[in-house]
């Protein structure tokens, strides 16, 4: 991609605006987490870490957070594995079967979550599969699969077919070709898909409520809290989550950048 300096400046301004859009809403809870809030107003002269203290005591929320993270990570790992596999398979042809498969993958994504939640719940009930975090993970995987699948597929289609041919030609097995040739070229897309998928799982309420056993996840708790209002420690929680994920992402960026890309610039 290239752009003239003027265009770059315009783009930068726009990007700045988008950053504002995305980060603006985050500021409020972050800032409020450090101050006493009384009568709906923030008391600027009363900075405090009370909220953080309260958070450490809130076992229910911390439990929910742990569950959420576990579900999210599992769902991301599963959907990456399955989604990539499916993308590879579907990319191998264009027959009706593959079209149908594609349709199946997309269905849970586009149906209202309550439908997915209910049908899975009924399904699990019928086959007598106990509801637990496992069923939640399955539900989330089914839900975010389409996203991972589609992102990986788009990237796959952009990859030159001749690379795969060259790999086979040199005697590589299908798996070796995947691991050594395709995967390195897919990592960017997969990492991106993983973040999006995790985000979806992280916020997913309806399916979760329906297929969970006796465990809560964070969105369930927040969803339920809406009735009575959020406690200040929630602000502390989201602030911490944000700080943590930002740090994680910056570290990830170090490893995500393809080496050939860096080499090219030197």
């Amino acid at each position: 991609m290239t752009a003239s300096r003027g265009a770059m400046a315009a783009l930068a301004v726009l990007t700045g605006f988008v950053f504002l859009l995305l980060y603006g809403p985050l500021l409020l809870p972050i800032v409020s987490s450090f101050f006493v809030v009384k009568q709906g107003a923030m008391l600027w002269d009363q900075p405090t870490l009370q909220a953080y203290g309260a958070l450490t005591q809130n076992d229910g929320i911390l439990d929910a957070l742990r569950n959420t993270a576990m579900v999210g990570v599992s769902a991301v790992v599963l959907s990456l594995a399955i989604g990539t596999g499916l993308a590879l398979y579907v990319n191998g042809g264009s027959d009706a079967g593959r079209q149908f498969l594609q349709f199946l993958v997309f269905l849970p994504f586009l149906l209202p979550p309550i439908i997915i939640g209910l049908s899975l719940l009924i399904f699990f009930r019928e086959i007598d599969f106990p509801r637990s975090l496992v069923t939640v993970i399955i539900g989330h995987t089914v839900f975010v699969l389409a996203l991972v699948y589609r992102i990986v597929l788009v990237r796959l289609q952009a990859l030159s077919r001749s690379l795969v041919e060259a790999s086979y030609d040199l005697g590589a097995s299908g798996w070796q070709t995947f691991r050594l040739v395709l995967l390195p070229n897919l990592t960017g897309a997969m990492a991106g898909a993983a973040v999006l998928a995790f985000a979806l799982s992280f916020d997913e309420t309806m399916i979760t409520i329906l297929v969970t056993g006796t465990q809560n996840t964070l969105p369930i708790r927040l969803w339920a809290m809406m009735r009575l209002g959020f406690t200040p420690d929630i602000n502390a929680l989201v602030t911490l989550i944000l700080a943590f994920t930002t740090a994680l992402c910056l570290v990830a960026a170090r490893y995500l950048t393809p080496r050939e890309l860096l080499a090219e610039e030197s």
Partner: protein
Amino acid sequence: AQAKELRILAWQGYADDDWVKEFEQKTGADVSVVFIGTDDEIWAKIKGSEGKDFDLFAVNTAQLQRYIDAGLTTAYDLDKIPNLKEALPRFRDLTQVGGVMRDGKVYAIPLCFDSIGLIYDTDKVKPAPTSMEVLWDPKYKGKVLAYDNGEHNFSFTALTLGIQDPFHLTPEQMDQVKQKLIALKHNVLSFYTTADEALQIYQNNDVALIWANYGQQQMKAMQDAGAHVAYINASEGALAWLDTWAMTSGVQDKDLAEQWVNFVLQKKIGQQLSERTGFGNTVVPAPSAGEKDKLVWLQLVEDPLKRSDLWNEIKAAP
């Protein structure tokens, strides 16, 4: 032997951590609570699992009937709930509480409630109103906030019109109410959907009266934000919701479930519940509703869809 397990599906505030811990210590049971956000989810979850995923769930009296109809509940053995005898008079005799019994059996134990009253600005509305009729007062034209919900609006308007059973309207009554609502519409500034929204509109506009779908809690929030407001339950009767504990048909340890219900009917817990949520509880008197206030417990209405359609027509009316 394996630890006993109790699975609860509840609203926020109905099974706080400290109560759960105390109960667990007392009984040695393992309690897990899943929190819920809407009535619809409760139904989907309980119906979808045919009652198998939980032992106890919180449900309001209007919703309860369908669970009983669908055979998703189990009747209580009142002997196992001695604390019920200590409940407020209004809730002591369950035959007097609409809808918790069926065929002589008790299917739900009331837990907490709140009225749907009227918030008024003490500076602007004088003297203090007593009836919902004030919403139609031309004096307050453009200063009224109403709630955007067909079902409840029909019910409270019916009450205001003096109709005995606001939940089962005849077609004629329905039409009568509809006309009255159209009149109301011309008096309101806006319909709101959340308490927060009402507060925001209140802060930014000249608002005198708010039909308080969110009850006392809503008023408290407004007072916290510095508003000069007060709350009444109308003399013709105030709609009120009443949440109860119901036992699922799939209850695994009935004894334990009844122990929990009995446990939360303690005075101490009732007190805490009211303090923390602002709702009225069924064991200790709370400011939510005076003993004398006439509360009309919400019931399943004759045809929710019909009301919703009519409500749309009202909003579209000139």
